[in-house]
């Protein structure tokens, strides 16, 4: 049943990606989509597909997958059902570094900023991680949660302060402040793909140990698990996954919280299933939300976060009422 569901979700994801490439302000028949990939002729439609639609769909899929997996891992290591990738301060750190780089160091160009975002995410995540693991009892869920939440708030507030002190900076960085998957380049995705891939690999390899850790630190330790090591590796995976996705798509909220809950409802508590399902369904939700955001206020687009909420919230509330396993 579970493998079948996973295959079905993957099919749905492929269909959603195809739809996302085909539909928009100009609708392009699927045969032309195929042609543009197989026999590129430099025509208008082919150009739109290659430079706009395909990068957009792929970025949405990768970011959605990464955020959902990172969220599932975060909820285990903080043992908190409302933890999200941003709880580790990764998003706020990335955005702050971008503001700092554009405003004070005159770095520009999306490619360079992708790297800045990645560095910011890693620095902030590493500091939270350090702050959460000092002390005799090592890294405890409460400490890491609080360290992350206060770090996120701190960076967020510095960001706002910097922006208010310089008006024109606001326009340049606005594109980073609201998460979006539009207007990005395929080379940006290529730059962060290795990190996302590494993070995903670590997370998937940790699925078994995460199952043990989810039972609680004392049980995990008495079963012989080195909980600090598992938490460290898991936090590294979250930094890679969330850092990669914020670097390419900006801070997209909410997916990292709800997808893990939806998946747990569907497949139970085994992370060897939860994590792959999270990856596929997270990608599906973000691709679908991105597709939807083109049609709500056509020809203008609404931010993908808004559509994510519109699509995700009713289902999520329904599930929360029905029965949520945590």
């Amino acid at each position, binding site marked *: 049943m579970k493998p079948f569901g996973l295959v079905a979700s993957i099919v749905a994801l492929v269909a959603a990606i195809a739809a996302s490439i085909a539909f928009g302000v100009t609708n392009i028949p699927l045969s032309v989509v195929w042609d543009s990939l197989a026999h590129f002729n430099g025509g208008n439609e082919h150009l739109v597909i290659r430079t706009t639609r395909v990068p957009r769909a792929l970025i949405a899929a990768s970011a959605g997958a990464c955020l959902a997996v990172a969220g599932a891992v975060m909820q285990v290591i903080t043992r908190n059902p*409302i933890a999200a990738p941003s709880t580790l301060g990764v998003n706020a750190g990335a955005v702050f570094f971008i503001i700092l780089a554009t405003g004070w160091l005159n770095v520009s160009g999306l490619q360079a900023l992708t790297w800045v975002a990645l560095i910011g995410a890693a620095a902030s995540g590493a500091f939270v991680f350090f702050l959460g693991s000092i002390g005799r009892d090592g890294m405890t869920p409460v400490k890491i949660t609080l360290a992350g939440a*206060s770090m996120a*708030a701190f960076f967020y507030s510095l960001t706002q302060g910097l922006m*208010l*002190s310089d008006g024109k900076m606001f326009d340049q960085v606005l594109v980073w402040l609201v998460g979006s998957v539009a207007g990005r380049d395929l080379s940006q995705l290529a730059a962060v793909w290795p990190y996302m891939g590494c993070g995903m690999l670590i997370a998937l390899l940790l699925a078994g140990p995460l199952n043990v850790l989810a039972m609680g630190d004392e049980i995990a330790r008495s079963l012989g698990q080195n909980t600090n090591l598992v938490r460290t590796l898991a936090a590294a995976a979250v930094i890679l996954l969330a850092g990669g996705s914020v670097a390419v798509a900006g801070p997209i909220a*909410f997916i990292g919280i709800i997808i893990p809950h939806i998946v747990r409802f569907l497949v139970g508590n085994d992370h060897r299933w939860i994590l792959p399902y999270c990856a596929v369904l997270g990608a599906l939700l973000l691709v679908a939300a991105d597709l939807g955001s083109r049609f709500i206020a056509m020809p203008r687009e609404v931010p993908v976060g808004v559509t994510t909420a519109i699509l995700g919230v009713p289902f*999520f509330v329904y599930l929360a009422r029905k029965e*949520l396993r945590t």
Partner: protein
Amino acid sequence: MNNTKFAWFRSPRFRYAWLLHKRALRVSGILLVMCAVLMVASIAIGSQYVPPATVVKAVFGQADPMNQVIVEKLRMPRAIVAVLVGASLAAAGAVLQGIIRNPLTSPDVVGVTEGASFGAVLFVYVFTNQVSIHWMPLASILGAFAVTGLLYVLAWKKGVSPLRLVLIGIGISAAIKSLSYMLIVSGPLQLADRSLTFMTGSIYGVSWERDVATLLPWIAVLLPFTWLQARKVNIQVLGDDIAVSAGARVQRDRLLLLLLSVSLAGSAVAIGGAISFIGLMAPHMARRLTGPSFGSLLPVSALLGAIILLAADLMARTVFFPRDIPAGVFTAAIGAPFFMYLLYRKRNGT
């Protein structure tokens, strides 16, 4: 736990005992002094410096006319509003963290703040130039209560469980935020400007008649009343099973506490806008200073909230002088380093 560590205040008539830790008394004393000093500093510093001694004189109406006007009309209401808003946000967060039992909970997470913002945005969107802007606080309080009502109904299923409450709260607050955003985007430009200031949270341009007079009675009743419920919060913290077997009426208490929290947060947000961080972090700071018993947690949280907002507002007025930046920008810039220091100092447990 040793009885000598507690100062017992027992009323012979009413059956109340505030389980107040002696350390909490000492900490509150220190914080109270800090708060008073900051208030004086906040009144003294500004484009026109007023010496602290004159400030104290002006409070009693004994200063020269010029300084009297500056202190009485301009700076004092602002300092008082900062104290009230900060204290009630922190208290609301402390109550909410008690009933939901999740360290990440704050009025923003369960949608109270988003509801209040939505009320304010909707008010500006629908009634611009028709109804006086003075009614905006009422609209945002109504928004906060409406969203909480919706949350409670959706989370109700033979009682509300803390987990359902917070998860559905996250969902609702995301949805409401999207709605606010759609309104802002489709409305006129001035709406966007005003809404963004509201969503950051600021306390400039407050006046005695409008802001202090509406906020003070509410808070003066709500805060002590919340304090009297300390026992109920303490029992909720233990979890539903223990609370029920200890004889608490869990669902009724939870509704009462939720309403108290919304009233506190809603009225604070209505006047000060969606100021972040205080509702989340002030209770954690207090917990690290005095321990988890709600009787001491509430006053210490409230004082910390007041201090953070006073300091943030002072910084917002002076650092980028002459620009007056919303205080909500600086609450975390001031509070977070202090909290991280506390995390570091208490790294081996209390």
